[in-house]
């Protein structure tokens, strides 16, 4: 069984614990074990990145060094962490001076960055370690093709390509193919690769909201009945914005994290996937399963 260190970041454990739980459950079903990286720190996100580029690299550098110590690669599920850790790795692998500076800080805890640990996002594990065929095989209750879903990848999952190495930032399709393997239909919508607006929340909540709602309207315009995400931040934002405006409750489009959706088709029970914690009830999606194969 392949094993990774799971670095869930700071947002999901508090605001979206169901993402963490469904990730663990789904990967377990697919033969991948996650164990926790104890005593870690936040990656610093755009805040520390903007104020001190070196401190930003140091924060992720420590996370990478912790993983190295236990000889494991790191699995992330958040776009911001994905960016921070991959950026830090790139800097530390290519900037000798900076590596010396960060290592002198890590030395106090007997840690060292050598570049041995890799960083992969959940989607990469599903693509590279598991593969579409195995995902298909794990399905016990496929969705009905009449269920139409839209995907939102998250900017910091795909850009910049040189660091992220996940999918074409202008036309990402990996997650779309995975969802098709679960039986559902995936629809393309205008401005699919646009940002959810989340990063603007602290500076201009009103504008952040409008950017998110534009996305919802674009999904609605092509008949999307649900949005599937692969970043905790985006997921929270795309659900949250649907409560700010004057959307009627029946007009809200459910937002699910990819492992939640997969877990439903894999027959994992709803409590384990934390479906009742979703802000917008995913009931219509759960009800779109085909009859159980016997």
């Amino acid at each position: 069984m392949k094993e990774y260190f799971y670095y869930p970041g700071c947002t999901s454990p508090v605001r979206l614990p169901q993402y963490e739980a469904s990730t663990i459950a789904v990967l377990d079903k697919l033969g991948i074990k996650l164990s926790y990286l104890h005593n870690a720190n936040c990656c610093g996100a755009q805040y520390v990145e903007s104020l001190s580029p070196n401190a930003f690299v140091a924060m992720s550098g420590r996370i990478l060094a912790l993983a190295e110590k236990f000889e494991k690669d790191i699995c992330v599920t958040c776009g911001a962490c994905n960016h921070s850790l991959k950026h830090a790795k790139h800097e530390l692998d290519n900037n000798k001076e900076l590596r010396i500076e960060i290592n002198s800080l890590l030395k106090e805890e007997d840690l060292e960055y050598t570049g041995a640990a890799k960083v992969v996002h959940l989607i990469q594990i599903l693509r590279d370690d598991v593969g579409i065929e195995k995902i298909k095989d794990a399905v016990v209750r496929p969705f009905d093709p009449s269920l139409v879903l839209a995907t939102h990848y998250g900017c910091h999952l795909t850009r910049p390509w040189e660091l992220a190495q996940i999918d074409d930032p202008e036309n990402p399709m990996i997650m779309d193919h995975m969802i098709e393997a679960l039986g559902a239909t995936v629809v393309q919508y205008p401005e699919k690769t646009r940002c959810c607006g989340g990063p603007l929340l602290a500076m201009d909540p009103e504008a952040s909201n409008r950017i998110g709602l534009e996305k919802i309207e674009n999904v609605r315009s092509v008949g999307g009945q649900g949005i599937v995400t692969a970043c905790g931040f985006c997921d929270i934002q795309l659900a949250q914005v649907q409560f700010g405006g004057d959307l009627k409750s029946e007009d809200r489009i459910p937002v699910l994290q990819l492992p939640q959706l997969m877990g439903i088709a894999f027959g994992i029970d709803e409590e384990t996937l934390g479906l009742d914690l979703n802000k917008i009830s995913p009931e219509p999606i759960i009800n779109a399963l085909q009859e159980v194969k016997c």
Partner: protein
Amino acid sequence: MSKELHSPTSSFAMEIASIPGGEDIRKCIQCGICSATCSVASVVDKYRPRKLIQKILIGERNEVLKDDLPWLCMMCRTCEDRCQEGASPVDIFHVVRQLAVKEGYIPDAFKQATKTVLLDGWMLEDAYSDFIEEDRENLNLDTNLEWNEEFTRRLMSKYFKGVI
């Protein structure tokens, strides 16, 4: 990309171009594709990445460094993918932010978030309530999140003296 570079015309543009990441300012031809593609520009009238770069090119140092505008960029990098000249407004604005920090201008939202992260070791200590702990318990997840703040506090004294 082997595009022709132009020489900066203002001392502010030269200053930006001399800092790693900022050299992209020499590639910008002011075509406006970034503004046309930017999600923030589509909802905030005063925010236009092309215009912000223009302000740098013509040397409006004070206006740029003492304004919230460079901090409205979401770093989504959509414009960077679409810029035909291979320039990255994100990298340019990152350099602008670093200079603004040196001049003592940091928007409150950034200051607060950074302070929280460095003091607590993570972002959401205050938001982690008993209710959420219960949700985690029900999901069979560890309730002790075990964040480390010693390291981030050390970073605070090394990199942020007099900054936040």
